[in-house]
């Protein structure tokens, strides 16, 4: 049987099926041969060296929006649909993806196209995660092909669904190791009619964490809380009078601090830059994504600073970005109880494995991977060293 091939990013030709049956056929055939494959979406993130495979499968050409019902806040798209295409369709109806998926192209200097399948596989979620939840919280249903070539459906297209086990959650963030997504259903939300950002210049990491803790305990629905290079930012969104009111109330809480206001289009541009880490672009120094409890961020950042590098914060301090030439084990050590993962490998590449897991979790996760992919052909080595 022959399969459709496409050239991606000057790499070896990838198998790029144009239909779900073709994709399922390729996996079934690879399963029979026990032939491992690298699974990719639009190839905008780095290709892990941990994966040992001679062939590459991409869902890039399974493309197109299947249905979009603005009144039901739901969209179904094939896995290879560019996120840009989805965002354009949603914007025409005044809606968007509330979890604000990051675009990695600028920071990683990649040429691919971010796809909705890649986004779900990696559970990509931006600054609004602290308010609106992650990609996984907006995933209503999936269709995917498992490691034997079986086409499987789970969830659906409705907002509330508790019918059977929730495999969508399991697939989201599984980085192609459990199955290859062919179609996803997402919850869409109206884009707020107004947004403003409070900027706090001359702020330390400790000061930023205090600002975040105070603001995120208010009912003013702060939808972004980030920090970079001495400035902390708080974003508020909503109906016009709502945003004005919330800005006044928040400003009053911090009346002893200097505050600049960034409004509407300028605010949207600012958050796009924060989301896509433009402040770390144009460099090839390894960049780490470290998850911590916000209250522990100052201590973690102090330890990271001792290694040398640049820090920025998102998610109210729960996410620390760290650009450094220090080696991986030193970064993981400094992260303490936090979880460190490499986003940009640098040259020469750093080891890019996932953070180590406890023995019980590792055992359950390995058993689940074997259940979905008995021959170990889907991105082997990526999550299971």
């Amino acid at each position, binding site marked *: 049987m022959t399969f459709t091939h496409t050239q991606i990013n000057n790499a070896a030709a990838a198998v790029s099926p144009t239909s779900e049956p073709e994709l399922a056929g390729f996996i079934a055939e690879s399963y029979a041969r026990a032939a491992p494959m690298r699974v990719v979406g639009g190839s905008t993130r780095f290709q892990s060296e941990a994966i040992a495979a001679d062939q590459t499968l991409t869902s890039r050409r399974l493309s197109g929006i299947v249905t979009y019902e603005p*009144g039901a806040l739901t969209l179904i798209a094939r896995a290879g649909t560019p996120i840009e295409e989805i965002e354009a369709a949603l914007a025409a109806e005044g809606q968007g993806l509330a979890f604000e998926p990051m675009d990695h192209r600028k920071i990683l200097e990649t040429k691919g196209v971010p796809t909705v399948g890649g986004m779900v596989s990696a559970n990509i979620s931006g600054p609004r995660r602290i308010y609106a939840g992650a990609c996984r919280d907006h995933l209503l249903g999936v269709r995917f092909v498992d490691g034997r070539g079986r086409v499987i*459906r789970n969830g659906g297209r*409705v907002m509330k669904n508790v019918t059977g*086990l929730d495999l969508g959650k399991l697939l989201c963030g599984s980085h192609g190791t459990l199955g290859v997504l062919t179609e996803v259903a997402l919850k869409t939300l109206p884009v707020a009619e107004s947004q403003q950002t409070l900027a706090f210049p001359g702020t330390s990491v400790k000061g930023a964490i205090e600002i975040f803790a105070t603001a995120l305990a208010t009912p003013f629905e702060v939808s972004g809380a980030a920090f970079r290079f001495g400035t902390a930012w708080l974003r508020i969104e909503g109906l016009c009078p709502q945003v004005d009111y919330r800005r006044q109330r928040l400003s009053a809480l911090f009346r002893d601090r200097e505050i600049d206001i960034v409004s509407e289009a300028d605010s949207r541009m600012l958050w796009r830059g924060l989301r896509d880490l433009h402040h770390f672009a144009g460099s090839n120094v390894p960049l780490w994504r470290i*998850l911590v409890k916000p209250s522990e961020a100052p201590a973690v950042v102090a330890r990271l600073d001792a290694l040398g590098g640049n820090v920025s914060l998102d998610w109210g301090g729960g996410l620390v970005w760290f650009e450094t030439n220090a080696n991986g084990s030193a970064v993981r050590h400094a992260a303490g109880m936090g979880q460190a993962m490499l986003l940009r490998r640098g040259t020469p590449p750093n080891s890019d494995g996932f953070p180590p897991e406890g023995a019980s979790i590792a055992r359950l996760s390995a058993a689940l991977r074997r*259940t979905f992919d008995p021959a170990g052909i889907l991105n082997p080595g990526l999550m299971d060293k």
Partner: protein
Amino acid sequence: MPTIVMPDPDAGVIARAPQIIAALEAALPAGTVISSPEETRAYECDALTAYRCPPLAVVLPRTTEEVATAMRVCHELRVPVVPRGAGTSLAGGALPTADSVIIGIMRLREILEVDTANRFIRVQTGVTNLAVSAELEAEGFFYAPDPSSQLACTIAGNIAMNSGGAHCLKYGVTTNNLMGVRIVLATGDIVEVGGPLLGMSGLDLVGLICGSEGQLAIVTEATLRIVPRPEGARPVLIGFDRPERAGECVGRIIRSGLLPVAIEYMDDVCLRAVEAFVKAGYPNCAAVLIVEVEGSEAEIDHQIERIRLIAEELNPVEFRASRTAEESLAIWKGRKSAFGAMGRLGDYLCLDGTVPVSKLPHTLKRIGELSKAYGLEVANVFHAGDGNMHPLILFNANAPGELERAEEFGADILRLCVDVGGCLTGEHGVGIEKRDLMTKQYTADDLAIQMEIKSVFDPAWLLNPAKVFPLEVSQPHRDKASRCP
């Protein structure tokens, strides 16, 4: 005879009952194991009361370790285990079998950690849903999922069923508010999963366990996301003379960019029952919507004005906006007493299918036609904003054959939900109630992988037997498991 069949109990287990009870009593502190028939009868059913069966024994541990001990004993002796929270499941999710031991977590009631700086609370799962929010009230936070049984239901049950509630249109359901769990596996092993960090890497086992209906593990502790209390909230009541106008209004509100906390729907059958019961002062019309918005006084006024403009295009027979706390209570009073009001009309089955919001008018019309065909009255009261319907089928349990006819009618409604692109259950879970309809929503492969996942966590298929998966579909798994050493 009700139509849902449970498998015959394992005669081998029943024969060994005295040894099993003795082994549990030997391994656990005094007062933990209940085995006298007078006492186990209290556990013979949950809120799906048409189905009853006393268990072999009931274990009520006080710690995670005691849960683990009970699980280990049951695993070694190959005794099925039925996990139980407060027993408020409407789907038979906690229905025992005669050969099973119930492990109830209602004595695990400690609040372990309140951390407002990092915005989470960690609790033992026998804590009730409402008690979690009560604990947070002084801090200005709350726990968002609010199933209508929240006074009684436990966090363990909420996690098992991925419970929703009226306010999940804005705040999401349990899975969107659950950060970590401590679980006891069928073998008795204790595992920590997830925790207070956002966006942890690795497979999302927390997401898998949430909503798994006791098929994978017993959850004894939970780390829950907490959110700041809104400054205020007020509802509006909108009455329409045609159901499809109410349905249209729901869609228009959602598209407008407003994000109400709740949009509730009640039809004429329900309105009449409620009026007779609590005299809520609702209009006499075909359908009522209750829409609640949050914020400061001015923010609420602004949102209500926008809703009024949307509603008026659809010629409502009444538009009543609450201005005070008393008026808010009055508007909610009828909705909150709806199930009680329906109970006065007779016995009822409460369904829980979800449909795409755009299909609400069609679905309501079709339910009306089915109601005539079956000769059974049906009332509709539900969370319209997310398409989660709760048709209540009225019947007389004492009339021979009526329960069976009501169940058939219910199954037809759920098939209809699937046919229009929805699902069998939005927030109550599958349990035994929708078990045999799973093949309507899922293919053989869809179900096969779910059962393979269960086998990873529970290789001997001892946890919550005969739920979720249709019996004939799960037969090979159960046969294989029973041959395990």
